[in-house]
Each structure stands twice: as structure tokens, then as C-alpha cells.
């Protein structure tokens, strides 16, 4: 795994070119086809782009990400690329436009190498729900890389690209980052444009970076962050210089440890790994104190009500009428809908559409959706209160390390509980990063999560960068 710092150094010493870097990544991608991380790789396009960037570098006017090779989750639209969301229903769909994040990457001279596999429509925590086959864990192929951005996580951790874009609705960047031992950041809701991200749950979705180092995650965030006229939910909050925030100093910072995340159900090895990190922070002069998030128990239930409600509506457009998969044996309009959607969507997606339709139905709306909205506000104010006392919160990213493929596929509830520590950041709209913190007895990575105040990615990244350099 090479960081962008290594690449930049090699490029400036003329030890390599962007074209060479692409060739190397292509070779690795080819060698690790078994992992099924990519749904599409466009070698030709990447090489053409690499030569252009090399020329720009010669001319001395290359963008800040020249030499960074990025993989993109297949729910983010890139003009003229298929955007499948790992679903049969969008298998043939070619995006006619670029997501804002893609335009920004291109402006910064990053090079896109391919589109990565994922849980269908980002619904899942193991990347087993892909219509195009599951993604395997690079350390142990019988295990899962987490999800839903499993392809992006594996692409970075197996050295197939420098960084990757994922999307995080309830932990879909952080949990796979944790499982594969890399850095994964979910920015504040409204920090990064969602324009061109195929929506799962609009009020929770955020695009964010996967990287080998915190510095690279910061660089990628720098390039994609900011207000976008095409996404009304992006905030007009100025984007700071994230790299300068990484000052390797945590002295005087207040670190909150939510007591609800450290109850007896937490695995001992994960608890120990995190406490080691807390000790490092203490000895560096940070103040570590316990805080409380009283509504933590309701997080997963609230998340699954609200996320599925929005999903049921967001996925209504995939009806076989205008684009995407259409059943060829339908004789009426209604049949076209039912057959196209029944065959086009996978099991988990259908489950969530039904759940979401149910919680929005008349007679159930108040008891589920409306109550979910109320609890969401309570959860948000838990975080507001806690983060008014401390600068960041630290806890585990996931209750487990990577699990075996098939282990939870028959038990959706167990699968949903994988998100127990991650969904709250989406509900509260706050930034959260997962960084590696050691491994378990099976040599599988453990993840540590740092959560911060809205639009304070700086402090979150600063603490993450500090711990990374001490590890």
C-alpha cells in the first residue's frame, strides 16, 4: 500500500510517472481479480488521463491530486460509465452526467481507474448483497470486507488504487475501513455534494474518502468538500485547509468516551485495543473523560425506520418504464412494475423497500416514521450535549472484526447490528472517521471511530492523524 506522499515523492524525483503508476495498479487489479473488488476498470481511459496529467506536471500546472489514482463506488455517476449500484435493475444504465465529486476530482487531476463493487444500492454491511457476486476480504477470502462500500475498501487495502470514494448512510465507509484496516471518513452531512450519488437515504447519505493514511483522506476530502449549487442540502460553510490541521498535537484536547459504547457486550480484544489508544492520548496531554449518550439503544431501530422510508421512495424511479431492467413478459402497466421490480431488485433491497413502504403507510406513519424522526432529534441532541463538553468522541467502529461470508446473511437483524456504533453519526449528521487500531487473534484489523462536531472534520482528522503516527 502506497500513500500519496510516497507517490508524490517518487513523481517529483522523476522515479515514476502517472502512466507507470496506473500500469502498476492495473497489474495488481488483474492479479487480485478473485477479490471481486471492481465492477468496471477502464484501463484505456485511465492511461489516456495519466498521460494528460503527466504532461500537465511537465508544464508545472498539475492539480493538487496529480498522481492520485481513485476508485469510485458504483453508486456515484461518472459520465459515460455504467452506474449499476451493483443491481441487476441498473446493469445497463450508463450515466449521462458526472457527479459533482467526480468533476471536482477531475479538476484536481486525480485519475479514476474504475468503479467498485458494493452491496446493492448500498444496502448491507458485508458486500455480500451484490448482484455481481460478493467481495472477498484480502486477508482471508472466506471473510467479508464489510459494507456496503466493500469494493472501495478492498481496492485501497489491497493496493489497487491510492484512495477511493465510498458512500456512508449508516457506516458504509467506516465499517469496511475498519474491517480492512484502512482509514475511512464520513464527512458532516452537507459537507460534500450528493449530486450524482444514487440515493439510498437522502437525509443520511454522504460521500467520503477511503485512504491508506489520514493525510490522504484529508487531501481527498479537501478536493470534494464544499457547497454545491446542485445540492440544496450542502452547507455554505467555508472549507478549511485540512492538511494544516494535522499538527500532531493533541495536548489539551478533551476526548469523550461514551459509556454506552463500552458496556459488557463489547468484545474484550476490541475494548483493549481502544483503551491502548486512549492511553496514548492521555499521555500526550489530552483529557479523556466519560460522556453519556442516553438514547444510544434506539439508534439502530431509528436508523432502519428512517433509512428504509426514504429508500422506498428513492428507489421508486426504478420501475422499468424509462431506463434500466424491464421484464419482457408484462402485458399490463401494473405487471410491468411488479415483474420488473421483483426480478430487478435483490432480496435485501426488496426487504427494505417493503419495510420503508410500511412505516410510511397511513395508519403506521405516526407510530413509526414520525416517532423515528422524534427519536432522531433526541439522538442528535445527545451528541450536541456530549460534544459541547468534549472536542471529539472515541469508541469502536464495529462490534466485531470481519466475519465469515454467509455468517449473517440469514439473520438480517444480526447484520443490522453491525451498524450499532456507526448509524448514530449519520442520524446526528456529524463527521466520523474509522482508523486502524491493531488486529485481533485472527490477524483481522480492529477499527477505532472518532466522531466530532458538525463541520469540524479538522479536529477529527487531527486526532486520527496523531494516533496513526503513534501506532
Amino acid at each position: 500500500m502506497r500513500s500519496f506522499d510516497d507517490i508524490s515523492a517518487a513523481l517529483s524525483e522523476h522515479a515514476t510517472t502517472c502512466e507507470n503508476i496506473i500500469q502498476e495498479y492495473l497489474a495488481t487489479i488483474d492479479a487480485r481479480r478473485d477479490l471481486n473488488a471492481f465492477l468496471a476498470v477502464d484501463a484505456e481511459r485511465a492511461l489516456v488521463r495519466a498521460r494528460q496529467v503527466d504532461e500537465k506536471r511537465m508544464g508545472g500546472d498539475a492539480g493538487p491530486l496529480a498522481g492520485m489514482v481513485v476508485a469510485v463506488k458504483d453508486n456515484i455517476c461518472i459520465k459515460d460509465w455504467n452506474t449499476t449500484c451493483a443491481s441487476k435493475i441498473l446493469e445497463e444504465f450508463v450515466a449521462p452526467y458526472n457527479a459533482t465529486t467526480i468533476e471536482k476530482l477531475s479538476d484536481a487531476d486525480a485519475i479514476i481507474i474504475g468503479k467498485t463493487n458494493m452491496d446493492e444500492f448500498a444496502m448491507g454491511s458485508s458486500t455480500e448483497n451484490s448482484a455481481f457476486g460478493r467481495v472477498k476480504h484480502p486477508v482471508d477470502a472466506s471473510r467479508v470486507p464489510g459494507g456496503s462500500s466493500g469494493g472501495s475498501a478492498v481496492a485501497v487495502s489491497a493496493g489497487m488504487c491510492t484512495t477511493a470514494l465510498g458512500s456512508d448512510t449508516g457506516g458504509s465507509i467506516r465499517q469496511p475501513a475498519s474491517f480492512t484496516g484502512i482509514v475511512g471518513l464520513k464527512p458532516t452531512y452537507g459537507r460534500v455534494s450528493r449530486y450524482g450519488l444514487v440515493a439510498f437515504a437522502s437525509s443520511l447519505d454522504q460521500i467520503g474518502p477511503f485512504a491508506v493514511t489520514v493525510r490522504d483522506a484529508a487531501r481527498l476530502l479537501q478536493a470534494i468538500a464544499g457547497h454545491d449549487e446542485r445540492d440544496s442540502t450542502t452547507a455554505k460553510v467555508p472549507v478549511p485547509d485540512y492538511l494544516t490541521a494535522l499538527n500532531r498535537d493533541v495536548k489539551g484536547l478533551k476526548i469523550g468516551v461514551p459509556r454506552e459504547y463500552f458496556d459488557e457486550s463489547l468484545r474484550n480484544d476490541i475494548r483493549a485495543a481502544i483503551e491502548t489508544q486512549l492511553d496514548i492520548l492521555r499521555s500526550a496531554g489530552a483529557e479523556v473523560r466519560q460522556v453519556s449518550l442516553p438514547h444510544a439503544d434506539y439508534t439502530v431501530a431509528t436508523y432502519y425506520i428512517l433509512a428504509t422510508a426514504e429508500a422506498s421512495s428513492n428507489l421508486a424511479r426504478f420501475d422499468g418504464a424509462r431506463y434500466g431492467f424491464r421484464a419482457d413478459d408484462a402485458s399490463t402497466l401494473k405487471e410491468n412494475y411488479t415483474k420488473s421490480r421483483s426480478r430487478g431488485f435483490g432480496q435485501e433491497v426488496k426487504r427494505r423497500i417493503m419495510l420503508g413502504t410500511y412505516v410510511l403507510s397511513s395508519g403506521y406513519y405516526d407510530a413509526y416514521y414520525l416517532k423515528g424522526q422524534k427519536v432522531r432529534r433526541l439522538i442528535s441532541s445527545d451528541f450536541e450535549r456530549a460534544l459541547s463538553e468534549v472536542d471529539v468522541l472515541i469508541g469502536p467502529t464495529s462490534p466485531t472484526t470481519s466475519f465469515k461470508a454467509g455468517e449473517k446473511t440469514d439473520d438480517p437483524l444480526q447484520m443490522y447490528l453491525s451498524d450499532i456504533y456507526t448509524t448514530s453519526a449519520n442520524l446526528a449528521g456529524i463527521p466520523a472517521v474509522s482508523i486502524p487500531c491493531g488486529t485481533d487473534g485472527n490477524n483481522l484489523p480492529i477499527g477505532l471511530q472518532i466522531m466530532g462536531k458538525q463541520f469540524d472534520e479538522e479536529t477529527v482528522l487531527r486526532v486520527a492523524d496523531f494516533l496513526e503516527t503513534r501506532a
Partner: protein
Amino acid sequence: MLRAEGIIIDVPSWNDTYEPVIGLEVHAQLLTRSKAFCGCSTQFGTGPNTNVCPVCLGLPGALPVLNRKVVDFTIRMGLATRCTIAPRAIFARKNYFYPDLPKGYQISQYESPICSNGYVELESEQGRRRIGITRIHMEEDAGKSIHDADADTLVDVNRCGVPLMEIVSEPDLRSPREASLYMKKMRQLVTYLGICDGNMEEGSLRCDANVSVRRKGETTFGTKTEVKNMNSFRFVERALEYEIHRQIDLLERGEPVVQQTLLWDSTAGEVRPMRSKEEAHDYRYFPEPDLVPVMVDDPWVEEIRASLPELPDERLNRFVREYQLPQYDAGVLADEKDLADYYEQTARSLKSTNAESYKLASNWTMGDVLRVINEQQIAARDLPVSPAALAGMIDLVVDGTISSKIAKEVFDEMLRTGEGAVQVVERKGLVQMSDRTALEKIVDEVLERNRGQVEQYVSGKKQVFGFFVGEMMKATKGKANPRIVNELLQEKLGARTK
């Protein structure tokens, strides 16, 4: 308001122990240049599916961005109907499947509409009536399904995302006539405000009605039905008449009214139920997460209030004040903005600015101008005779160049050729004869030629006077100044009588 139909005496054609209760939902297509949530143009005529983009096509990943003009226009209507303007308006998704609805939901408003609790006033057969406005909200239009001969359905999404305003009335209307008067009021307001072209035939202004009946004196409502597809004022009345009769007949037979949605079929002249699967939707409304709440602060509302054009009632009053018009004239003229503008431009172009000229301009506008635009189904502004041209003609009447009678001929010629009044009058030699000496000569000739009638007059049969006037006009091809002809005839005949 009463227009040319005269006084309305609306005797209910149904069993009058019953009372209808009607509420209207009016949809008005807003005249913004671009669509509600994307930059696409709202102007069509470039072929199907051309004014589209990823947003209005509902492509995966595309997001709506609110066009502030839509809010602006809706607030205008809210202020004109004395509504409360919400400080915070929220969009909601109305979910249902239909091929002409690309996202599978319509962006609308549900729980927090932008305007609520207003009213308009009508003059109906029951006197001055105040009709409550429950709410006015913003939403986007769907596309058009076109069913072609091969039983295929084609979809044109040009109209997708065109902004609509829905105005929901209280169930305050008590007759089909009131419903159509209310609808006319809506059209009057939206056209005055310049936010909708008000064209019902083309569907830019449409309405659905909720109808029930109850025995007079009852305070609870009967079971209501919804009637759709009434695309003219006349159809509003006819469809509601039909539906009220139908409901009363059911109740009289002891059968219940079934709550359902009905379509007005103007060819058959009846309402018929929509197929049940076309209704019975659970729309699963919920707040639209892709849009932030619209914050409407006081300065914004005040800015819009200050920019409101003069509304019909104000204009009526001003016409009475400024042009000394009778109340009736001012009412007819102010009724439609287009006609009011025409009158006002005519009045302002007149050289003679006195009450007589203003009244003359009013007579012409309410008379020939209104007749021609009704006959030709055109807007007053499209009349070949411009307000300035009409004013020019009226000036000729006022200064005695032409007679009122000749003016009719001049107007028709102007209408036909588009010429100015002076041109027509000169070309056709229509200048009024006011030369006393010349006219006196002709009077003498006429009296000479018609001795018999002169005898009759002298012997006391005064009604033959009109005959002489007619003969004078014939002899002068209508150009004789009637006043002078009168004077001369009185003079000469009077002399013979003595």
C-alpha cells in the same frame, strides 16, 4: 362581475329542500421561465422530451434545486387572497407509480403549505359572499401520457417539473354558479398577478371539485364525491349540476352516496366513476429530504407585497375615481386584466381628457371591442385596433370630425385593414358635413322632393320628422352632422307650420 349576462337569478333546478356543499381545488401552472426544480425552460413547442435534464428526468443521483420564483409567485397569490404566509414552508414527497412521473413521487407540500387561511369575495345570487381559502401550496407537474393508435403509451416529460400552485377552498360554495364564479375569480386573480395565463382549455388552469349535498338547515356534511376534468367555466357548472342531481336522486331513493372520484365527460354530458384502481392511493407523504425548508422572512414578504400589481377591486374603484365611470362600466372593464389594460391604454391615449371622452371610450370597449374579442376568441391586446388607434377614432368623434354613426363604419374598417382612424376617414371621405350653408341647401332639396311628407308634418303629424332626418343622411351618405341637420329641419319645418 355580472358581465354581459345581466342580473343572475339562479333558481335551483333541484329539489330545494337540499343544499349543495362544494369545495374547489384549483391548479394553476405558474409562468416562471424555468421549471420548479431545474434550469429547464418551461416554453415548449420544440418536440417531445426536449426540455429535459437529469433532474426533471428523475435520473439516478440527480437532485432538485428550488426555483425561488415559484415561491415568489405563490406568495403573490397568497397575499392577493389575504392568506397567512408561513415563515417556514416544507416540501413533501407524494409517492405513486405512473409512467409520466419519472421519480415515482411528486414534489409537493403536505403539512406546512406556504399560504393558508385566506379568502376571496364574490357577488353571487346570494349577495356578497366570502369564500375561504384553506391553503395554497407549490408542487411540480407530471409529464403527459400519449396513448397512440397501436395501443402503445408514449410519455412526453417536457411538462415534468413545471411549477404548479394548488389553491384549496373551504367547502363554502353553495351552487354550481358560485363554483364557476369562484373559478372566474381565481382566473381573474392569477392573470392580474401575472403568474398564470389562466387558460382552462389548454389546462394551465384546472379544477377538481368536492361535492356533497345535505338537507337545508343541517350543519354536518354529507358524503362527498370528487369531480375531475372540468376544463371550462361552463363545464364546471354543468358537471356540478349533474352531480348534485345525481346525489339528491340517490338520497331521495334512500340510497347512500358512495365516496368516489368521478370524471366529467363533456361529450356525454355526465360524470362517470374513474376505475377504482386509478384512485385508492396511499400517497405516503413525507418531508422531501433533498430540499431544505423554505424560510420566508418578513422583508421578503414585504418586498413581494410592494411589487403586487393593482388588483381587480382596486382597479374598479380607481376607474370610477379617475375616469368618472359609472360603477357598472368600471366593473365590466376591470373584470379581466386584458380588457382593463386595453381600456386604460385607450383612455390614456385620448387627446380630450374629460368625463365624456372617458365614457365614450368605455362604451366602445364594452361594446364593439368586447364583442369582437369574444367573437374571434382573441385577447384584447391582440385586437387589430390598438388602444391608441381606438383613442384616435374617439378623438375624431369628440371633435366633431365624424359622427358616432360613421364611427361604427370607421371602426369596422380599422379592424379589417389595421389602418388608423384618420387614414380611414380621409381615404373614404367620411368627414362629417358641418357646413351650415351646404347642409341648408340639401335640406331645401329634401323638403322640395318630399312635399307630401311636409304637408303631413304641417298638419300635425310630427313623427315624420325622423323621415326627413333619414333622407338627409341618405343624401349625405351619413356624413351630415346630426346636430346641425336637426337644427335646420326644426327651423325650416317650423317656419312652414306657422
